[in-house]
């Protein structure tokens, strides 16, 4: 028995999509949460259009009415250290507009 894979990162098959729709999960965000498609290392690059087209066929929806799921950072697999910063070295005071609060205000998440 062969499998038709729509999302190779998470091993989600076309049969899984059909099962999801049959259980009442039609919306692409619901299907994402139910099957896990689009949640692997490629974050939907390979599958989101394929799944959206399949959902349009399975539910009879017009393609233009099917939205993608929300795109969130990072856009590509990224080591966590790219999101870490050394607060002593990089305060980004220029981005805050003014740094009058620096030192006086309690530490925020940004500075922690």
């Amino acid at each position: 028995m062969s499998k038709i894979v729509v999302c190779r990162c998470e091993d989600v098959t076309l049969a899984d999509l059909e099962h999801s729709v049959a259980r009442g999960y039609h919306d692409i965000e619901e299907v994402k949460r139910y099957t896990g498609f689009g949640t692997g290392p490629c974050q939907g690059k390979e599958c989101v259009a394929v799944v959206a087209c399949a959902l349009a066929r399975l539910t009879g929806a017009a393609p233009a009415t099917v939205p993608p799921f929300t795109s969130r950072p990072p856009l590509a697999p990224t080591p966590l250290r790219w999101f870490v910063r050394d607060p002593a070295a990089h305060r980004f005071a220029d981005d805050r507009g003014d740094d009058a609060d620096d030192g006086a205000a309690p530490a925020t998440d940004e500075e922690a």
Partner: protein
Amino acid sequence: MRAFEGESVAAALFASGTRVLARSLKYHRPRTFFCMSGHCSGCLVRADGVPNLRACQIPCRPGLEIQGQNAYPSPDFDILGAVDFFFAGGMDHHTLMTGSRLLNKVANKVVRQLSGLGTLPGHDDAVAPEVRSIEVDVCVIGAGPAGLAAAAAAARAGAHVLCLDEQLRAGGSLLTDPRHGVAAADAAVRDVHDAGAGLIAGACAIAFYPEDAAGGVLAVAAPDGLLRVRARRWVWASGGYPVNLLFGDNDRPGVMAARGVGRLLVQHRVLAGGRICVVEDPGVAAYAGALAAALHAAGAEVERVAADAVERVRGRSWVKAVQLRTGKKIDCDLVAVAAVPSPASEGPRQHGCAVTLDPPRGGFRVVVDDDGHTTVADVLACGDVTGHLGPDAAAAMGARVGAVAAAEACP
């Protein structure tokens, strides 16, 4: 292993005969090269103790240690591959072993041991990247035919331009297309330099933060550190992703994106198979035809079949044949899937641009007007990210949109 300088680990592994690299998350099906452009999860390896790195995005260097992952004892023979046989019809993890509370607890413990990809890094890498801020008139994201043309046109119009490309080598789809190739990509890159634009390869836009002050900031993982880019005008030229078509066992090793096969042939001079079956969507017949001819000229036997004629592929650890709905079997040692590339619109979506699902043009394309304006005032887009165009039309659009972006950024 021998490799060329600057060559990707994936190309070097393929050329030296390595085939299966890892196993999949749930069914432990064999996984390996597919897109050769960093957009799938096929070629994840452990490199120098760091898990889950894309082999196609790692440049070869002396002494680099590469291991397969997610398999025991090895990716070629993995005992957990049995899961695939036991759940031949699929597995719904929501209802699996939920009948008894005790059984469910045990099942959870087992599954948590088995799930996940790779194992933790072998060493700490606590060094935070250098951070630099850059401000330009026009920032072009992507250096394929559209992005290179846009960057050159914007710079010639007098704008201060930065063009970013995530691949190890700039050129995008030109490097996967025998009608264009390395010489055409290098000429387009030279033109960008001659026009006075900045171009950084190996620089991946990892996020756009619109809430950041003064029009938002693009975070870019560049070879020498993190860039925080601000621009008066943004031009998304991120192209399209190679995707798969739907037929039985379409995830088998040896089923590769046609663009992956094209990149191996055109950029790396590696012929990926001896008997190649090209499975094609009619929307990309011109590319499929050009690739088939080039593969044949390089010495392979090539057969082209329409995607909707294919029932399934045969073979387990590597593809052996394509079986058609008619029952006919085409023996082969490689399947090149030519599907319409899916517009790489995640970045524009983070930027707030409207997209629409347009199946004949590959997926969620960015909505643009004739000048490349998206639905966000300072953001333009060109090339395949606006719906599949192909390299020539993408370059023409890029030149037009680059000039518009420059005129608006430097009135």
